């Protein structure tokens, strides 16, 4: 095969892939499957991340994931419901009075309970890392370009926050340094005010400047006369609203195993169609073009399909054999390796090898 020219993949493709994996992670409590998802995500990120600051933030998401697991374990040790038969160790215990719901602090820690808490933490951590992977692989600003024109005000807000947020860290550092010049190094509530006020002022100024710049450069401009665009009627917002509600109910139906099948996929599809129609109607007047549009060709199809395959595999597995999708804790058992889910997850590693390399 002729190696493809280095180029950035369509951001939507990476997001579909990552959302597929994240939803798959939410559906399983099987530590082996979760570890496999983490491994696949890491391999793809290492192979296909760019050199942008966003890509470097992947490490932060991993740290955040580790923190989630750790805090879930600590919470279990402190206030968790300790059940099981394999006794690990004993913590001094304290039963809170009845008005505080009679919670037990500390006590005997069992392997089963601790394991269960750890797996719950791992599930959340995996979902966080999946979103982090999408951020590392696809520049969020390029994703914003795909935002429909009718969401102009929302779009301004999102672009401003995405741009100003990294600068916030910089201005916090600057103000902290400046405090030293006034000889202040005390902590406490007063220092919060000393730092927060200049930082907020700075951020607000920058946000306004950016919003003004976007406005003066024609963001959200409509082709029709401004007076006509004022009366837009209720069709567009109505359709979008009904569509989004339908899609939410449909999504819930799809992901929950004990709802009627009719509430799932069909309702989701109907909702999405309605929402798209609504957004189209609302964005009729706005016309934009794209400089060097990201093409949607084979690698994009492959990446998006990989995400959907994982999702489908785990969905099918959880309908057919719910037990295999979770770790048996009470009584303790070995986790199983259901082959449809494993195959699906392994297929999700393909984009890490088959997509074109990112530009350096």
């Amino acid at each position, binding site marked *: 095969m002729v190696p493809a020219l280095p180029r950035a993949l369509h951001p939507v493709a990476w997001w579909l892939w990552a959302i597929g994996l994240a939803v798959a992670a939410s559906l399983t409590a099987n530590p082996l499957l979760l570890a496999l998802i983490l491994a696949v995500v890491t391999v793809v990120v290492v192979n296909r991340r760019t050199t*942008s600051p966003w890509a470097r933030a992947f490490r932060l998401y991993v740290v955040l994931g580790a923190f989630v697991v750790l805090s879930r374990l600590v919470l279990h040790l402190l206030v968790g419901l300790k059940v099981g038969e394999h006794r690990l160790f004993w913590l001094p215990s304290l039963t809170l009075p009845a008005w505080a719901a009679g919670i037990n602090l500390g006590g005997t820690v069992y392997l089963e309970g601790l394991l269960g808490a750890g797996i719950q933490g791992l599930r959340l951590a995996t979902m966080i890392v999946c979103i982090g992977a999408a951020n590392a692989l696809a*520049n969020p*600003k390029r994703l914003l*370009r795909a935002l429909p024109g009718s969401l102009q005000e929302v779009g301004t807000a999102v*672009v401003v926050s995405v*741009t100003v947020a990294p600068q916030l860290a910089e201005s916090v550092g*600057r*103000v902290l*340094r*400046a*405090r*030293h*010049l*006034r*000889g*202040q*190094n005390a902590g406490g509530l007063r220092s919060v*005010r*000393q730092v927060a*006020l*200049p930082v907020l*002022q*700075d951020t607000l*100024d*920058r946000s306004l*400047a*950016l*919003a*003004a*710049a*976007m*406005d*003066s*450069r*024609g*963001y*959200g*401009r409509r*082709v029709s006369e*401004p*007076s006509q665009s004022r009366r837009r009627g209720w069709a567009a917002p109505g359709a979008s609203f009904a569509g989004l509600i339908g899609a939410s109910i449909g999504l819930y139906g799809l992901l929950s195993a004990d709802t009627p099948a009719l509430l799932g996929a069909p309702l989701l599809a109907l909702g999405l169609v309605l929402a798209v129609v609504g957004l189209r109607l609302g964005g009729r007047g706005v*016309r*934009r*073009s*794209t*400089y*060097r*549009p990201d093409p949607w060709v084979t690698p994009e199809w492959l990446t998006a399909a990989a995400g959907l395959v994982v999702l489908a595999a785990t969905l099918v597995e959880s309908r057919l054999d719910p037990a295999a999708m979770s770790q048996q804790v009470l009584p303790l058992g070995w986790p199983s390796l259901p082959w449809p889910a494993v195959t699906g997850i392994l297929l999700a590693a393909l984009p890490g090898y088959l997509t074109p390399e990112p530009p350096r």
Partner: protein
Amino acid sequence: MNPAVTFEQVSLTYAGEPAPALRAVDLAIEEGELALVVGRTGSGKSTLLGAVNGSVPHFTGGTLAGRVTVCGRDTRTHRPRDLADLVGVVGQDPVAGFVTDTVEEELAYGMEQLALPAAVMRKRVEETLDLLGIADLRSRPLAQLSGGQQQRVAIGSVLTTHPRVLVLDEPTSALDPTGAEEVLAAITRLVHDLGVTVVLAEHRIERVVQYADVIVHVAPSGLVTSGLPAVVMATSDVAPPIVELGRYAGWSPLPLSVRDARRVAGPLRDALPPVPIPHDRAVVNARAPVPMPHDRAVVSARAPHLSPPPNRAAGNGGDRPSALRARAVVVRHGDLVAVAAVSLDLYAGEVTALMGRNGAGKSSLMWALQGTGTRASGSVSVRGGAVGSGAVGSGADVDPATLSPAQRRRLVGLVPQSASDLLYLDTVREECAQADRESSAAPGTCAAHLDTLAPGIPPGRHPRDLSEGQRLALVLAIQLTADPPTVLLDEPTRGLDYAAKAALAGALTDLAAAGRTVLLSTHDVEFVATVAGRVIVMAEGDVVADGPTADVVVSSPAFAPQVAKILAPLPYLTVRDVRHAHPPVGGS
């Protein structure tokens, strides 16, 4: 010819303000003109610029009476986004207006919003890259560019939509002299080759005035006058050195470029004594009379027989004890070496200017000297307790980095580049009281300093509502409350108009006269010529020149002040020097 921009009886009042920012403005800017908007800080220059594309009042709020039209479109019915194809706007801080991450995407952004076809966009991006000389930057991240490059990208990003009018708010005020030249060259090329109408506001009038076709003067009352540059400048309340010199010498018509001024300056050059007469600034150094062996090589091509005037005595201080001594200071930011083994001495009673390109390491050096900034290696020692009551270390040499922040600022005070970072209270009065408390000074010390630096600031005013100059004075007063013998100022002249700069120059001279050591970094050569006795030039983290202002500055094509260029080879730097040596009528 149809005017590109017209104002008809325009008045603008911001909500909650008693007086209008603009008052009954009648103005017509013809197609293809470069209009320079001048005025004191806070006089409504930015309001006037914002009104051109309708972001005042559509975006900022306020009530506009009258009518503003751009190429026939009324801003009353057209919002800024509806004028995006006619008017390109570049704000004061180009970075704040960047929407995308790389140069190429930024150039294309405006065209995407106008829904231009992809083929047109590709072509215009290439043309604009070449027009502004930034083709080699095309895929660079915007954050990694120098100030001059960022400004040119910002101009390019609005040019790609082929606007008829370009609005620029202080395009060169944050730039070093070379970066400013690049940007101005690009702007004049647009005016001359493409016929773009440019409306430009600038504090550093001396940089732009020679290119202007018309000058629009905004008075603090909101009244606007416009006319030919030589006519308006003759009476303007803001005047660059070249205009002051012309007014003083009575040249008419007023020359606005160095070239024109040199052609009429012959008689003045003949009338002036070959060396400026030292004036009151000499007092500063007279307290520490110093032999001036110019032992170290100074980048100077001055004729050797011209001994520098004693009031600029500086540098290389012979046997004088230094107030601050730095040896082989290295500052690193990650892999980047910001300051590369700089050694220098600062002396009491002397104002020293630190110059150099954006990113030459000036700020990093200042922070390291103060002790709050990181220092990878090298040593800094400050003579403790030389001045006033805030004695720390009682005369012994101390490294400020080893002290607590509170002790450190009693030795070395630093006014950072974004001075308002230090302010967080609601009124000037509270800030002053807080400053007295944190420096354990007598109540009223800070307010007294402030009153000397900038008299007449209402104590109930919110610090954010002060002008740039007043805010700087407040921060300087806060730092002086701790009574540090050494004061460092990082880019204090940013955004100051001529009057504010003159006030700052007076304040700094007084500080030095009181025996303090002053080091300031700036790009403003005219300011350096007025205030500093010694100049240190940095490049790439190194000190490349260090010596008396007259020697360092006059010989450099980029750093020479206007008066020096006009009167060369005479070593006069400021109008004040000239005025002092040459009483106007009937003198000499």
